[in-house]
């Protein structure tokens, strides 16, 4: 009996070893890092259906401070692939460290990507360092159960604000605490709605200035909303979560935010699963939304499994990925492949990004962010001061301009104060 048992154990062990050996021989697992928790279901699906032959992706999600995680793990040559944030300034340290390389080195076909999509993945040397895969849109997001009719111009918007205020509803909820929200979301959406393509392109090239009337007037209009009581009473006391909670509960009608808040993974639907969100540009002189490439898939050229890495990059650049991304993540893919979209929100966002988004993107422009102090901290600090009543809209404009002028900003001479 003992002998039979021993034989059975050995046979099972041998079989397990054989099977596991077979599994290792069949597929390679690559490590991928991301902050995008909403992509987990997509990666699981890709793995489950074996859509990348011979490659399994192990997605590691770090929602907070992924840069630190990458800095540490890259010392031991992990991960093989990582979701990278848009803009050359974000990519530069990884390029300098030799853990990012142009996708052209692997011969990835990028013909399906337009100039706007590639801009976010392009380094300061003009090379493309990743496969862009998601476009984002920033605009006014509103709770449809509170706001039923979209205003079409600023006068109508302000009349709507007044009505909502009279009903005891916060018309526009603002997160005044988070620097990233103030400069990347609020400020850029205000630019898209209230300035113009020409002016935004001008500040990127150094031919227009923040002290121009068009910018000062835009900020003055926003500030007047706070002065008239259309914003939440203490924007500086509210963080991003509080802002989204207010809109989800319906105690606030609108917020300026990215469309990522309307994807199924958004915590707003945990507050109200029946929540219906609408999207519109700030109906000012430009009346545009802010569309941009949010992330691209970059790779570690020192990866031990570079062939598997290449396969994953190729898959990310394929029409199948674009379709799956739209279906499973319910977000706008970055490639130009025709995608059959059934989701109304994705459809609307892709149309708005394609047809009505601000052409220039100061937030990602090298000329504005590669100087020290740069556009991003200057804007977030300045907007906080504006919301706190410490400076006027013109003061905000001068703070940004003088900060940029102190460094090597391309338009310093043109915009001398």
């Amino acid at each position: 009996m003992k002998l039979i048992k021993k034989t059975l154990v050995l046979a099972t062990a041998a079989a397990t070893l054989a099977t596991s050996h077979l599994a290792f021989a069949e597929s390679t697992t690559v490590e991928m890092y991301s902050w995008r928790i909403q992509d987990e279901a997509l990666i699981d699906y890709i793995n489950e259906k074996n859509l990348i032959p011979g490659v399994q992706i192990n997605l590691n999600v770090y929602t907070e401070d992924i840069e630190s995680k990458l800095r540490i793990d890259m010392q031991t040559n992990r991960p093989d692939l990582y979701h990278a944030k848009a803009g050359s300034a974000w990519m530069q340290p990884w390029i300098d460290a030799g853990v990012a390389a142009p996708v052209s080195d692997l011969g990835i076909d990028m013909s399906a990507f337009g100039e706007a999509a590639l801009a976010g993945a392009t380094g300061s040397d003009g090379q493309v360092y990743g496969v862009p895969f998601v476009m984002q849109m920033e605009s006014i997001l509103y709770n449809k159960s509170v706001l039923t009719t979209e205003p079409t111009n600023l006068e109508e918007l302000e009349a709507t604000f007044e009505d909502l205020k009279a009903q005891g509803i916060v018309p526009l909820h603002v997160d005044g605490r988070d620097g990233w929200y103030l400069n990347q979301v609020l400020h850029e959406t205000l630019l898209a709605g209230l300035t113009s393509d020409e002016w935004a392109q001008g500040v990127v090239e150094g031919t227009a200035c923040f002290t121009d009337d068009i910018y000062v007037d835009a900020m003055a209009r926003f500030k007047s909303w706070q002065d008239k009581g259309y914003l939440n009473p203490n924007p500086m006391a509210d963080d991003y979560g509080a802002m989204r909670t207010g809109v989800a509960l319906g105690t606030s009608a609108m917020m300026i935010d990215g469309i990522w808040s309307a994807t199924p993974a958004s915590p707003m639907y945990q507050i109200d699963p029946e929540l219906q969100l609408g999207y519109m540009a700030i109906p000012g002189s430009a009346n545009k939304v802010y569309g941009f490439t949010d992330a691209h898939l970059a790779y570690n050229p020192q990866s031990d499994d570079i062939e598997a890495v290449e396969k994953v990059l190729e898959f990310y650049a394929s029409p199948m990925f674009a379709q799956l991304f739209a279906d499973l993540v319910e977000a706008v893919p970055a490639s130009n492949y025709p995608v059959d979209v059934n989701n109304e929100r994705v459809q609307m966002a892709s149309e708005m990004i394609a047809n009505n988004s601000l052409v220039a993107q100061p937030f990602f422009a090298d000329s504005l962010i590669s100087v020290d102090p740069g556009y991003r901290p200057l804007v977030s600090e300045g907007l906080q001061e504006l919301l706190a009543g410490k400076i006027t809209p013109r003061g905000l404009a001068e703070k940004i301009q003088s900060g940029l002028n102190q460094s090597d900003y391309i338009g310093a001479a043109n915009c001398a104060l």
Partner: protein
Amino acid sequence: MPDDKQASRVKLSYRTIEKIQRTLLLTPGVLLYSVFNFIPLLMLFYLSLVDWPGIGPKEFVGLDNFAKVLTQPYYRDQMINALLQNVIFFTVIIGCFLIIGTGLALLLSFRTYGRKTYQVLFFLPYPMAGAAVAYLLDLFVHPRGPLNAALTQWGLADAPIPFLGSEDTSLITMALFYSWHRMGFAIILILSGILAVRTDLLEASMLDGASRWQSIRHVVFPVLGPAFILITVIVLVDVFNNADYILLIMGPEAGPLRSTDIMGTFLFRTAFGGSADTTDTNFGLAAAIGLLTALMILPAAIFLALRNLRKT
């Protein structure tokens, strides 16, 4: 052979053996201190001499990082602001610990009803995770939180107070969060000091006609000096080097308008970037800030420690 052994034993004098024993006893501590403290300190000095974003090649810049922090207005102003606010932060915390902590410890030292329950209650927040405490207290003082609801309900405030949304209140609120969380630690230290007071001294003072307050003032308080100094040194080093609550609640930008910026948040923001910009990072500059902070608090810490040693 036994004679040889005896001879070798005789060679070692008592003093030599004592030296060997002392060396052996000290060695593990010295080794651990060297590996985990001294060598990292030397590495920190090296790091302060380079420009390094945390990955990739390090560029040697000499003392440029120190010069940048001390002379370039953008960084110098931030450091002065952070330092002054750190002093306020420390003062509020140590004030709470020494005044409220001593009061509560004295109450616990009396044989009052439910003393054990109070001891547990006061100590309860201390083992809680900082992140949990930060999250709970953030909700507690939020304009729509229970504190503001109570204040407006009782007519103590016309409108919700933005405790963490105003430059005037945010730093003090954060200091009170810290004090609430770690008050149990201060109470235990002070209480152990009180319980160490010799009962015969207290009895003698009472026999001499001293009131309870007089006994506390003239017999208990003088004995509490070392406990007060210990708490002061621990809190001093902690609040000038760490900024966990502020980082968790206000983020590296230490808003509103940098009104909660202390040396820890300034250092973190320099090393890892703020939420407004994650790309502008320099570990070398952060190391220089860390060394400057150490130099600033070292004299006070050494003075207090030496004073404590003299007293004991």
